């Protein structure tokens, strides 16, 4: 633990209430942060963590409540006030301007300038270099943001705050876009910052990071503060139960199985992306009956294009896709669905659901033209309603009403609708692309057990995910994708995070 100074509260928020229309995002939240600590804010998606920090940073105005910074009561009506009080915020989606240089991004709003507001970029670049050396955050001041890695972009974001003399740093889901190695580096960075007297508020829903990085943790659930605990004395299990409001199991129970013959075979597949570059470049893999094959990789290494090619949404340039040894290369999606391939797509709002349609309509989206749902081109609403009602029951979709618009459901329930639709088609191959993205712990648990259930029914499952933990927990075998190729396949029992992380960064060797 860093030198936490208990005599000085750096940030104190009392009774913060923030409403958006009828939604109460923050319901009388109290938060106390001491100087020099790493304070985690833990909560599910939509619990109100980010809203609370946006209030502290002056982006949102609270409906009621008080904020004290370093002992003074402050009305934070805009970010300038927060900045002048030493608060810096790194947003989940980086607030960087791609065509601007690192220096321009850092100085924006607090420019070094001479008479008539003429910029002194030279001097600014030197200043940037100086703080980057002081805090051991390497960046190249003259490069454009669009040309640097995500890890460096994050360092630019932190430097932006430090350049404004921030001593309280708010980091919103900072590790979502990083590889395991980058995450470790990042945790060292925040540790370093607290040793230099900075206070860090870390917004996250990843329990492991809290255990590794934080001193204290405030748990927020549905807009209310549940508790503030000392991280060392609390287990991950306890943190999770407080976050979700009931006990959750992390580890999906899974018995060893002997996989059968290959259901999906991909041979030397080449697929181009929207910029006409080879996103999938000679990729081969096989998914067998009764196994979950996890595809691990850093975002943008061809996963999206691979899934689109497999599901018939993107043209295959060369190579082949075989389901049950039948060639389905460049077939249309209908054909592929009929080959008993179902998909949980990456973007549930764009590809998974028609959000303006009702839940019922979404449930029969793949079968609407078949009996009993329609005959002679006319929909049979009674049959649709009965069928949807059954699925809503089985899959515990909430609200239990098939006539509400799918777009109004929570992320977890939207995902349940998709799973219900796909799984009840009784597929032989289930392709799940980032099936838990943006879901909270409870919903993740549900999705995971559904995937394992498919496997246990002797189906083949291809799991594509950016979350290495998820891949390691669920898969029987793990394939690592890097620049459109499989750089290695390992059995999950033999896999360790380090080796996988290295492979994901391109350091792997062909052995699969």
């Amino acid at each position: 633990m860093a030198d936490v100074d208990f005599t000085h509260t750096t940030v104190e928020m009392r009774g913060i209430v923030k409403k958006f229309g009828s939604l109460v995002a923050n319901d009388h939240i109290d938060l106390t942060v001491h100087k020099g600590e790493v304070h985690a804010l833990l909560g599910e998606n939509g619990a109100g963590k980010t809203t609370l920090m946006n209030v502290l940073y002056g982006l949102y105005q609270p409906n009621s409540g008080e904020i004290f910074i370093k002992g003074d009561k402050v009305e934070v009506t805009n970010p300038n006030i927060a900045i002048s009080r030493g608060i810096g915020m790194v947003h989940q989606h980086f607030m960087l301007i791609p065509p601007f240089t690192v220096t321009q991004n850092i100085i924006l709003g607090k420019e070094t300038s001479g008479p008539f507001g003429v910029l002194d970029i030279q001097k600014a670049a030197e200043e940037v270099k100086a703080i980057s050396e002081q805090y051991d955050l390497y960046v190249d001041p003259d490069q454009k943001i669009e040309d640097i890695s995500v890890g460096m972009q994050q360092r630019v974001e932190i430097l932006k705050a430090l350049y404004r003399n921030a001593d309280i740093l708010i980091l919103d889901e900072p590790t979502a876009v990083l590889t395991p190695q980058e995450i470790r580096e990042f945790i060292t960075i925040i540790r370093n910052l607290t040793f230099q007297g900075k206070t860090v508020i870390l917004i996250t829903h990843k329990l492991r990071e809290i255990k590794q990085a934080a001193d204290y943790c405030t748990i927020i659930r549905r807009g209310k503060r549940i508790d503030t605990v000392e991280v060392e004395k609390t287990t991950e299990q306890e943190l999770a139960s407080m976050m979700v409001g009931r006990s959750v199991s992390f580890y999906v129970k899974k018995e060893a199985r002997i996989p059968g013959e290959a259901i999906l075979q991909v041979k030397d597949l080449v697929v181009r992306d929207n910029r006409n570059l080879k996103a999938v470049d000679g990729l081969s893999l096989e998914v067998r009956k009764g196994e979950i094959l996890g595809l691990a990789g850093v975002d943008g290494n061809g996963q999206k294009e691979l899934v689109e090619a497999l599901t018939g949404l993107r043209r295959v340039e060369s190579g082949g896709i075989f389901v049950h040894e039948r060639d389905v290369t460049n077939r249309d999606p209908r054909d592929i669905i009929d080959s008993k391939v179902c998909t949980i797509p990456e973007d549930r709002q764009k590809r998974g659901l028609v959000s303006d349609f009702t839940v019922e309509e979404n449930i029969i989206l793949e079968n609407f033209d078949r009996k009993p749902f329609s005959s002679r081109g006319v929909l049979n609403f009674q049959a649709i309603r009965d069928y949807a009602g059954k699925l809503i029951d089985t899959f515990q979709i909430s609200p239990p009403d098939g006539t509400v618009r799918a777009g109004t459901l929570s992320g977890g329930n939207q995902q349940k609708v998709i799973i219900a639709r796909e799984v009840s088609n009784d597929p032989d191959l289930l392709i799940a692309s980032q099936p838990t993205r943006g879901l909270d712990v409870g919903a993740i648990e549900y999705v995971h057990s559904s995937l394992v259930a498919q496997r246990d029914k002797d189906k083949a499952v291809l799991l594509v995910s950016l979350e290495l933990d998820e891949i390691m927990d669920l898969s029987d075998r793990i394939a690592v994708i890097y620049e459109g190729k499989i750089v290695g396949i390992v059995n999950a029992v033999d896999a360790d995070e380090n080796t996988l992380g290295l492979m994901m960064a391109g350091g792997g060797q062909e052995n699969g």
Partner: protein
Amino acid sequence: MAMLNSLGFILGTTLMYATPLLFTSLGGVMSENSGVVNIGLEGMMTFGAFAAATVGYFSGNPWLGFLAGGLASGFLGFLHALACVTFAANQVVSGIAINFLGPGLALFLSRKFFDGATMTYNLPIEMKMPKYFNNMLPEGTFVRQVLNQDISVFMAFTLVLLIWFLLYRTKLGLRIRAVGEHPKAADTLGVNVSRIRYLCVILSGVFAGFGGASMSLAVASNFFQTLISGQGFIALAAMIFGKWKPHGAMVACLIFGCAQAMTIFIGGTGLRVPQEFLSMAPYILTLVILMGFVGRAVAPASDGIPYIKDES
């Protein structure tokens, strides 16, 4: 000698016709770099041309007229900003409204001030924008042929330099471009997005007004209904062709100006080309250039998207 004379004539005419386009195009550069699409340039230019001619006529002072042109269109710019920034309206729709409003107001006020006429009275030469460099340049030379221009020409090209410096070398310029690329990023750093956009859209109107004024006070000597007829749109095209950069817009305006000059030059040579086709040339050139080049031009990332603060 005749060759040189012709060349001098073409270059001089090019500069003359490029000027109104250039002012207006720079207006577009200002507005769109801050993230507000301004297709209302045509209407702003028309209204500016009318206001300049009217104030110039009644005051007898071209400088007052020129300024009035800028102010009048600056007011239209303010309306555009009000719609696009404060009320987050669709910027194209607001621009179209401005394009109806500008010429409509001009016509209405013209009938009011000029006894029901749809044009303003002719300005005598001493009430037009002056040609200061006229007497400094030796008579009958090539240099004189090219540079014997209204003061507004020199002002327009100076403005290119000023705006380039503003956008790429100053604090305010960095903020303007930041707001046009990623307003939320700018907002989180305490840059006032609305204020910057208001400033830029109003300036956009002012420059378009100068463009109109340099038409009615310098190129022509009064305002009439077909005076502008599409030049605002050509200026808009020039800005796009110039990749949203002031120096790019300048090059584009010179090309369009040259097309106009060639039209006049060919018309004067006795070549048997129908006048109608010649008049079409600048517009056809606009089409061709836009078809060929716009695909490759990159607008500021948030150009045309209203910034709504409480949206996460």
